[in-house]
C-alpha cells in the first residue's frame, strides 16, 4: 500500500470504522479484470439484444396471427421466467448441445442477449405504435413501399422515443450480468465473492464492487443522455 492509502487507513481506524483497505488493494486488479468482462458481456448483450429485439418486435406486429404466435411466446417465456433460471437452463442444458467445450462467458452473453431481446422487442413495438398513423400513410402516398416507410420514416422517429426505455433496459442488463457469478463466469461480482471467500469479510469487497457497478451504470446514463440530446430536433 502506498503512503496515501496508509493515511486513509489510519483515518478510518481513528474514526472507529472497521474497514480494511488492504483487501480492496489486493483484489483491485481482479476487480478491474472483472469489470472489463462485465462491460464486454453487457455490450455484446445489448448489441445482439437490440438486433434480435427489433425483429421480434416487428414479428409481434404481423397481422396474420399464426405467424405472430411464436414471437408472442418468445416474449412470454423470456419475460415471464427468472433470468437466473434461464441462465442455468442455457448453460447446463442448451449450450451443451451447441458447443463442444462449454464456456460460461458465452452462456452469459447468450442468456443476456435472448433475455434483453424480449424486453427490447416490446420497447420497439411501443415506439413504433406511438407514432401517428398519418406518418406512415403520408409516406405510402409518396409511393414508398413498406420497407422504405419503416426504414426512412417510422424507425428514425420511433428510435428517438425509444432511447429512455432502452437506456433503462441497458442498465438493468449491465446489473443482471452479475448473475454470471453463480456459474463462475469471472465477471465483477465473481471476484467480489472470491474476496469475501478468502477474507470472510463482506463490507470491503461488496462496497467496492457496488461502487464500480455504480460508475459503470452512471457512465452509461451520461452516454445515453448525450445521445438523446444529439438526436433532439427541437
Amino acid at each position: 500500500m502506498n503512503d496515501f492509502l496508509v493515511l486513509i487507513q489510519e483515518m478510518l481506524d481513528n474514526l472507529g470504522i472497521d474497514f480494511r483497505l488492504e483487501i480492496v488493494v489486493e483484489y483491485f486488479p481482479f476487480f478491474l479484470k472483472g469489470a472489463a468482462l462485465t462491460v464486454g458481456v453487457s455490450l455484446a448483450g445489448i448489441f445482439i439484444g437490440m438486433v434480435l429485439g427489433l425483429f421480434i418486435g416487428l414479428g409481434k406486429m404481423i397481422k396474420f396471427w399464426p405467424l405472430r404466435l411464436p414471437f408472442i411466446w418468445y416474449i412470454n417465456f423470456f419475460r415471464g421466467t427468472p433470468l437466473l433460471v434461464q441462465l442455468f437452463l442455457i448453460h447446463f442444458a442448451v449450450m451443451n448441445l451447441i458447443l463442444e467445450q462449454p464456456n460460461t462467458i458465452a452462456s452469459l452473453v447468450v442468456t443476456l442477449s435472448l433475455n434483453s431481446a424480449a424486453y427490447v422487442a416490446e420497447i420497439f413495438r411501443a415506439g413504433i405504435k406511438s407514432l401517428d398513423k398519418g406518418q406512415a400513410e403520408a409516406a405510402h402516398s409518396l409511393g414508398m413501399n413498406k420497407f422504405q416507410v419503416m426504414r426512412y420514416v417510422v424507425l428514425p422517429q420511433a428510435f428517438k422515443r425509444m432511447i429512455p426505455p432502452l437506456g433503462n433496459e441497458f442498465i438493468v442488463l449491465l446489473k443482471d450480468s452479475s448473475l454470471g457469478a453463480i456459474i463462475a463466469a469471472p465477471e465483477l461480482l465473481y471476484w467480489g465473492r472470491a474476496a469475501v471467500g478468502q477474507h470472510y469479510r463482506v463490507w470491503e469487497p461488496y462496497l467496492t464492487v457496488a461502487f464500480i457497478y455504480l460508475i459503470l451504470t452512471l457512465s452509461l446514463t451520461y452516454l445515453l443522455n448525450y445521445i438523446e440530446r444529439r438526436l433532439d430536433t427541437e
Partner: protein
Amino acid sequence: MKKYLSLIYLGLLLVGLLTLVACGTSGNEESNTTGSDTESDSTEESAADEPEEKKVLQIGTDAAFAPFEFMETGEIVGFDVDILEAVMVEAGYEYELKNVGWDPMFASLQQKDLDFGVSAITINDDRKATYDFSTPYFKSTHMIVFNEGSDITSAADLEGLKIGVQNGTTGEDAAEKIVGENSSTISKYETTAVAFMALANGDIEAVVTDNVVADEYVANNPDAKVEAITDEESFEAEYYGFMFPKDSELVTDVDAALTTVIESGKYAEIYKEWFGAEPNTDELLNAAE
C-alpha cells in the same frame, strides 16, 4: 452549470457510500464500548441478570453440504444437526437452527447476530484471527473428484487442469496451494452442488472438496461416471469445529458438553448412523488438546 451538477451528484454518492460504511460498523462499535456510557452499562447488566437458559441461541448453517447439513423435505438434517442437538441437550441450552447460507453466516457471526455457526467449518488459523472455535468434532481430508478416464493420480496432477471449488472453503485453499492463489484455472462456485454440476457439464475437469461430501456424491450418482481420490501427502487432515464470534462466553460450555458427548459414546452412535463406520474418537480428543 451541467458540469457542476454532475460533480455535486458524485459528491452525494460518496457521502452515501461512507454513511453505508459507518452503518455497517456501528454495530461493532456498540459492542466495543465498555463502561464509558452509563446507559449502555445498565442495559448490559439487566441482560446479564436474566437466567442463561431462557435465552434461545441463534445458530446458523449453510444447508447445502450433504451429509453434514442439507434440506430434506423442508427441514435441516444431517450429521452436524444431530451432533448439535446432542451437545445442546447436554449443555442445557434452547436453540434455533437457521439456514442462512455460507457467506452470510460469516458476516452474521462477525456482527454477532448469530451465537455460533455449525456448518462443517474447518478450524484454521486464518479464521481463528476473526472467530473463536470449539474443540474439533470431526476429522476430514480433501478429495479430488473427476470424470472417469482422466489421468489423475495425485494432487500434483491438478496443475494445468480446470478445477472447481466452493467459494471460501478449505477445498479452495487446498487447490490454491497447488496451482496458485486466484489462478485462472480455478472456478469458485456458490455451492459444492453447482461445482459438481459444472463437472458433469464439462466446465471443469476436477472438483476439490471434503472427502465425505465427495464420497456421498460418488455414491449417489453412479451414472455420473466419476472417480474420487485423495492425496494424504498434499492435503493435510483438518478438523471441523463450531465457530463463534471472537471472545464468545459460550465456548467453554459448548466445549465441555461436546467432550461429554464424545466420551459417552453418543457421538459414535450418531457417526455410525450417518457414515456407517466407527469414528476414531481418541484422535479427536487428542486433537482437542
